[in-house]
């Protein structure tokens, strides 16, 4: 067009970013790429094509790394680990700083390569992905620098196997590698097979940064490579970001392996607009929520909830905004929506949308390129929560919408999902925002904003969106373990019935404790409990899966406990301590009877139990959240919230203290707990319910189900209304517990064949509090 014609039409015209340098890099280092192992690029093996989704053209060939390649990479990481972990924090900080600087120096090359490989608009790669990746390395250089002083008594885990998705290839690499390296671990990372190129460029700059060989290894390939890595026996930590489906498989495959695991999975995040919101800004926010990266964002605000009174106006304005979105060549600087990553993904989006028969589907009236993987921005209004598209993750530029009447209903609809990654709330009413945000089942909540990220602010999900946090000190914890004194865990079996039983006069029957009431076992069976010397101490009900069901239901019903104040919970914990103290002689005698320990040991256990109750009473109002220093005008609050319902299998040793060491931190943080006490010595725990009853603890907060842990562990670990499982009983293997926990991807904390010294300091403290809480990051930008 001539200048004169443009003067009339006022079109934007093309504004392409050059890909010359990126293509030169591919040609120079490739075009066939081998894995990056032990500081060198291996010779390409069997390769597959990586394509530009905007054109379908082949960009390079990538090696399908074999099991042997993975072995070599893990071995290299293992060899590098002692040297790397022994560096001072400062020395590691220097390396991370160098990586940050190099990411900055090669910023445009990374951005263009990312856009070529992934199809995202160059604006996003250039202005969001790459700057956030740099920021992540700068921030973690700082964490490495401070680590020695701030987190003494912590050690790195070892070799980390990390598997990342294709939607933010470089950024997810940074989220994985920066904290792992800062904490002193070494890494084998597998990028997604669609998008390996920026990981390979990163490998290239690791060499420029002078990173020791083997500290970072990149193995390319598809799910087979990922499986070889995540199940590798010499990998200590698995970190995965990707689909819930694959996350669940990884949970099952790593069950009982002792590998530390963090999962960042899918979502169907609610985007709630109240009628007093700044509507135009809320609509603009949706552009960043669901049309950012073609909607291929795990935390995409993909479920729009609009207050009924403004819905018609809101949808009309939203459609007008959608029509303004520009689709096309992702390298064009004036493009809003690029190409979805692969024809496979395009087909999935198409299938999900086409299958829907409800509501009204609106496609943006904007030109869609005929060639390449482009899907138009789409809005589906008038869906009910029951519609499949309101429940299933689409992972594309498709927004689904429904309405609500009241704040409570908004929360109810928002939480009516298996996922719990992120949520967005728009209102100009501070009271409303700060009331709703904590009630949303999500790891991240944005108030009057969306998709804000920063290295200092923890990110991660609850429910089937996974567990673990990335970013901040909280994220670093996922790559460290406390140096603890442990001892081999040996099961203590119930004392067998003696030949000549000594049955005392009056029967005292221990029942289960469910919902604040004593309950008989549903199955109607009991088992005698004998003292070490053969005296009948009483009976324990033999619990079944139905007792577990009843207990979990009671625990779920006691949701009010989560909303009580820390002060109140502290009062009740002190009170439990006080009442236990009043009956300490009785409990000590019980312990002696059950376990055969001497008086001194039994007295000591009761004393420590009282001490422990005081510890958590003290913590109840002191395990504070933090305000993160994020680079916006606003605050990012990392609030600690109770996990919900915790299932706990108590250890055998220290039958009273072991149980209380789990109960106390759980309830101090506002959780409800279903506890299976020591199999050998259950009466120490069942005696407790009389103490609890007299201590003003609401019914359902603590529930005790006795029986054989081998029978009870799986129903409890597999129960989908239980949010975390703690297993310290030696009677059940970690594998069974963790496999069962995959049902709803609950957090698990299981013994690794070693037992905690409950009498010592390792039996209490922050580790327990962290297990009893979720970190929710609430972003509140402000300014008038």
């Amino acid at each position: 067009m001539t200048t004169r014609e443009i003067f009339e039409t006022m079109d934007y015209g093309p504004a392409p970013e050059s890909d010359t340098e990126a293509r030169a890099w591919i040609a120079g280092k490739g075009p066939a790429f081998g894995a990056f192992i032990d500081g060198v690029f291996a010779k390409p093996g069997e390769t597959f094509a990586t394509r530009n989704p905007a054109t379908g053209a082949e960009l390079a060939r990538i090696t399908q790394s074999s099991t042997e390649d993975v072995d070599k990479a893990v071995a290299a990481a293992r060899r590098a680990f002692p040297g790397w972990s022994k560096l001072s924090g400062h020395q590691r900080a220097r390396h991370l700083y160098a990586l940050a600087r190099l990411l900055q120096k090669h910023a445009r090359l990374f951005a263009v390569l990312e856009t070529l490989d992934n199809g995202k608009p160059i604006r996003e790669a250039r202005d969001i992905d790459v700057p956030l990746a740099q920021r992540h390395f700068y921030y973690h250089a700082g964490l490495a620098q401070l680590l020695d002083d701030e987190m003494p008594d912590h050690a790195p885990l070892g070799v980390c196997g990390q598997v990342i998705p294709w939607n933010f290839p470089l950024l997810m690499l940074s989220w994985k590698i920066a904290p792992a390296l800062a904490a002193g671990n070494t890494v084998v990372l597998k990028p997604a097979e669609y998008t390996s190129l920026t990981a390979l460029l990163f490998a290239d700059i690791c060499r420029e940064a002078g990173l020791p060989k083997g500290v970072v290894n990149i193995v390319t390939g598809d799910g087979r490579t990922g499986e070889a890595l995540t199940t590798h026996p010499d990998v200590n930590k698995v970190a995965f970001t990707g689909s819930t489906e694959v996350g669940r498989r990884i949970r099952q495959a790593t069950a009982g392996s002792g590998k530390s695991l963090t999962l960042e999975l899918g979502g169907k995040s609610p985007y709630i607009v109240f009628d007093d919101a700044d509507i135009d800004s809320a609509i603009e926010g949706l552009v960043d929520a669901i049309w950012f990266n073609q909607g291929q964002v795990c935390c995409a605000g993909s479920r729009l909830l609009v207050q009924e009174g403004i819905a018609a106006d809101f949808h009309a304005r939203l459609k007008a905004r959608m029509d303004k979105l520009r689709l096309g060549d992702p390298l064009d600087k004036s493009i809003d929506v690029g190409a979805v990553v692969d024809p496979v993904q395009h087909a999935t989006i198409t299938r999900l949308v086409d299958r829907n028969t409800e509501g009204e589907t609106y496609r943006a009236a904007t030109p869609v390129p005929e060639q390449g993987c482009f899907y138009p921005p789409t809005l589906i209004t008038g869906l009910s929560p029951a519609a499949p598209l309101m429940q299933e993750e689409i992972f594309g530029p498709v927004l689904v919408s429904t309405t609500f009447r009241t704040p409570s209903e908004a929360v109810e609809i928002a939480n009516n999902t298996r996922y719990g990654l992120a949520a967005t709330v728009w209102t100009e009413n501070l009271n409303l925002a700060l009331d709703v945000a904590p009630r949303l089942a999500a790891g991240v909540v944005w108030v009057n904003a969306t998709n804000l990220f920063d290295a200092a602010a923890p990110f991660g999900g609850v429910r089937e969106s996974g567990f673990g946090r990335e970013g901040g000190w909280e994220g670093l914890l996922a790559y460290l373990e406390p140096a603890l004194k442990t001892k081999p865990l040996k099961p203590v079996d119930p004392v067998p019935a003696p030949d000549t039983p000594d049955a005392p006069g009056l029967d005292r029957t221990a029942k289960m404790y469910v919902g604040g009431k004593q309950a008989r076992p549903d199955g109607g069976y009991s088992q005698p409990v004998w003292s070490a010397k053969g005296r009948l101490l009483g009976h324990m009900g033999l619990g079944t899966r139905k007792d577990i069901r009843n207990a979990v239901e009671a625990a779920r019903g006691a949701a009010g406990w989560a909303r009580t104040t820390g002060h109140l919970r502290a009062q009740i914990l002190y009170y439990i301590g006080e009442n236990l103290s009043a009956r300490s002689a009785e409990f000590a005698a019980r312990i002696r009877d059950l376990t055969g320990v001497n008086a001194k040991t039994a007295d000591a256990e009761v004393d420590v139990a009282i001490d422990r109750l005081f510890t958590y009473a003290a913590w109840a109002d002191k395990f504070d959240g933090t305000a993160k220093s994020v680079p916006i005008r606003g605050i990012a609050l990392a609030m600690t919230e109770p996990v919900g319902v915790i299932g706990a299998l108590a250890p055998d040793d220290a039958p009273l203290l072991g149980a209380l060491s789990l109960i106390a931190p759980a309830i101090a943080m506002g959780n409800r707990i279903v506890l299976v006490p020591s199999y050998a010595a259950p009466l120490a725990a069942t005696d407790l319910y009389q103490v609890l009853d007299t201590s003003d603890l609401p019914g359902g907060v603590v529930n005790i189900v006795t029986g054989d842990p081998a029978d009870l562990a799986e129903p409890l670990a597999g129960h989908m209304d239980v949010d975390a499982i703690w297993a310290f009983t030696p009677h059940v293997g970690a594998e069974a517990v963790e496999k069962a926990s995959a049902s709803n991807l609950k957090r698990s904390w299981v013994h690794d064949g070693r037992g905690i010294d409950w009498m010592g300091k390792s039996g209490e403290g922050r580790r327990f509090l962290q297990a009893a809480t979720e970190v929710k990051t609430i972003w509140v930008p402000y300014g008038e």
Partner: protein
Amino acid sequence: MTHAPTQTATTLTDPQLPQVHEPRNAGMPLDLDWVARVQANTSAIERRAASLPGRRTVKKTYQAAWLAKAITLIDLTTLAGDDTPGRVRRLCAKARQPVRADLLDALGLPPITTGAVCVYHDMVETAVEALQGSDIPVAAVSTGFPAGLSPFHLRVAEITESVKAGAAEIDIVISRRHVLTGNWQALYDEMKEFRAACGEAHVKAILATGELGTLRNVARASLVCMMAGADFIKTSTGKESVNATLPVSLTMVRAIRAYEAATGIKVGYKPAGGISKAKDALVYMALMKEELGNRWLQPDLFRFGASSLLGDIERQLEHHATGAYSASYRHPMA
């Protein structure tokens, strides 16, 4: 909104620019419920404004065409105490020929002029005379510009005088105190009276956004002025410490969009003060195109209040024509 204001069509002379004219904004009854409902979330507006320059860009021929268009949108302005008839005549000559003819030829562009010339009342006659035959309108700042604190009847009289002197456009200043005290009725009444005094002349309402405290106030004041019949809403006098900004502009153009949605009437927008770079002008134009559409890239609905912007655009255009970066002395001064 269901208010349907009566529309008054006006006919203007047809200059060489592709002028298209809309029905004038006759205003509507003050709708205080609507005013009270208006929200403006500052952080969100700032984020949108900050990302806009990264979302849209024009290159090469497109950039040249857009910059030429930008010139036609400029209210070439002098508002200085030392203005003289000679100075104003020079400015008018520049408005007639804002770009060297050889550059326009090289770029394949027709002759263009600036959108208007903007002066104080005492210079109106001089400007009208200097622009005779050009179809370039003369805009007069008025109503006790810039503070707007002279006696009300004198402010109204000043409008009448300027119109009498030949001003086709009147840039009035609102009483900021009405906004700051939430006295929307007073703002509405004042604006309505100014509008009436303007008669056939178009009225631009200067909100002096730098003195309104909050974007919420900017949004509400924009709306009230449109309800009272403003043809344009304008950010600033150029004399406040903060003048046109992208967040303020986004707030005001969203108000324009809402007003159009409710009434069908298109109101013009004029950012003024602080826009001195060609690149900034392009961002503002992209903002108009994105938020309101191409229709707001014509001088009857969009103006830049600027004095030094033209010089930067001229240099950029020469760069387009020659491929070499230009120097300011190569372009005739005002």
